[in-house]
């Protein structure tokens, strides 16, 4: 593999992705900021005042890390799925497929684009959150590493969704019917210690629970789950999903006839 060529190529894909995100900022950056502001007003401010304290934090503080993580996850996923599927649908994906860069470069470039959009929106939501509550970062390394790993996981998942998608409906099915329910049930708005034991165990099968709680631990220092489990699960997902992406690209599934 020509390393210099692949470095230039991956930088080109990232630049292209960022230009795209900023060109359509009304679609990519504004909606999550508005949605999260509404969450903070309605759930944090209005309803939260009646809920009171959760795990020793006021409700607004408690949900802020989950909402930031939720915006990172959904934006990382949707950036890769819409960009890669758009390129496939418009057939300009062929520009990359005929070029001598490796398949790993194509994957890494798109995943990096998803991560950058996720982090951009996550930063914006954090700024919005600071208008409503005070956030002290308890464990900065954990906060940053968890948000990065989670963003990578969902960017890779978005890539796989885009590879299999044949029409635009196919890129909204997973976010609507899988991602959103898992996020809402992933402990963004509540501690799973509030649930009966059976539902606590069911919740532990939801990978997003580990991401939200580990991120919350990074900021607030409190979590429902073991941080070690969270890292293990995230790393396993990164390896499995990246391997899956490479397999799909090498076999040409969904992209070559």
């Amino acid at each position, binding site marked *: 593999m020509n390393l210099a060529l692949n470095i230039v190529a991956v930088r080109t894909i990232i630049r292209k992705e960022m230009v795209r995100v900023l060109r359509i900022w009304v679609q990519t950056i504004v909606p999550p900021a508005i949605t999260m502001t509404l969450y903070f007003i309605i759930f944090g401010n209005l309803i939260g005042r009646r809920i009171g304290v959760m795990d020793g934090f006021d409700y607004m503080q408690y949900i802020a890390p989950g909402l930031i993580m939720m915006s990172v996850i959904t934006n990382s996923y949707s950036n890769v799925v819409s960009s890669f599927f758009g390129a496939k649908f418009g057939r300009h994906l062929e520009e990359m497929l005929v070029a001598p860069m490796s398949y790993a470069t194509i994957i890494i470039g798109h995943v990096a684009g998803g991560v950058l959009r996720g982090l951009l929106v996550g930063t914006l939501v954090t700024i919005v959150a600071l208008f409503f509550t005070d956030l002290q970062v308890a464990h900065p390394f954990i906060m940053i590493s968890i948000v990065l790993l989670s963003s990578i996981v969902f960017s890779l998942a978005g890539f796989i969704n885009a590879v299999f998608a044949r029409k635009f409906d196919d890129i909204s099915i997973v976010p609507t019917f899988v991602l959103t329910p898992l996020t809402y049930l992933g402990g963004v708005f509540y501690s799973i210690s509030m649930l009966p034991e059976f539902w606590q165990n069911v919740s532990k099968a939801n990978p997003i629970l580990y991401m939200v709680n580990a991120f919350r631990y990074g900021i607030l220092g409190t979590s429902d789950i073991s941080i070690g489990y969270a890292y293990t699960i995230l790393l396993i997902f990164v390896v499995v999903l990246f391997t899956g992406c490479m397999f799909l690209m090498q076999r040409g599934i969904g992209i*070559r006839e």
Partner: protein
Amino acid sequence: MNALTIRNLTKTYSNGKQALNGIDLTVEAGDFYALLGPNGAGKTTAIGIISSLVNKSGGEVEIFGHNLDQELEAAKACLGIVPQEINLNLWETVGNIVTHQAGYYGLSGKLRKERVEKYLRALRLWDRRDDVSRSLSGGMKRRLMIARALVHEPKLLILDEPTAGVDIEIRRSMWDFLQEINEAGTTIILTTHYLEEAESLCRRIAIIDEGTIIEDASMSSVLRKLQREVFVLSLAEPLSAAPALKGFETRLREDADLEVEKGQETDLNDLFEQLSAQGIRVISLRNKANRLEEMFMHLVENKGADV
């Protein structure tokens, strides 16, 4: 050295359609090669496999000695592709499209800027570099795809019907440009429906039909094979039936339009003598079709048998 070597290439699509039945093809470096065939013959499938956009079912492809199975990235680096369908990002600017493509081939910095400018100027698109590609006319989009395919200066350029839907003036200027880059050393393979285009540009020709190569020879030798020509005669007076003329085949197209097919062994003097003897006066005469087109139809109909 061969620019392209194809050995026993086969492709069967998942729906069972056999698109290629084991084709063999060799294109020498520096050649200007025409690949012709009717719609659905397998041309685009073959190009798709060469450019690694279509998975082959069997056989081997080498581009400048690099086997697609073993040295895919080296093979891709030698190749530039201009596809049949417009495959531009319609929301991206002209300049960015070519700049990104240069980046995918590892070009960066000053060299990338120079190449982008060089090919956008050569294809007369430099003034439109900041416009999004969807605002371009059809001919400009085709020129942009050529600029994009050339930005890494490939040794082998494959163009799949590059002048489809392009007006005559732009088509002629594209021909001139392609001849220039071929003379500068780029091997070119061209598929086209304009047989005049292949005849005036290409030195070698392959004809593919139903997934099989039925002719592969130099353009001059293929044209020498042409033994028959068809003339259309406009007659002074209409006829009720085609006249019988010894040594010629005749067909009445309209009442006063007579189609006459002649072989190399007969001459037009003989034709006119026979027509005069039957009292048939001819107002004008024209050659029915492009010679290559005529031969192409014979070959496809007779699957490569001598015409």
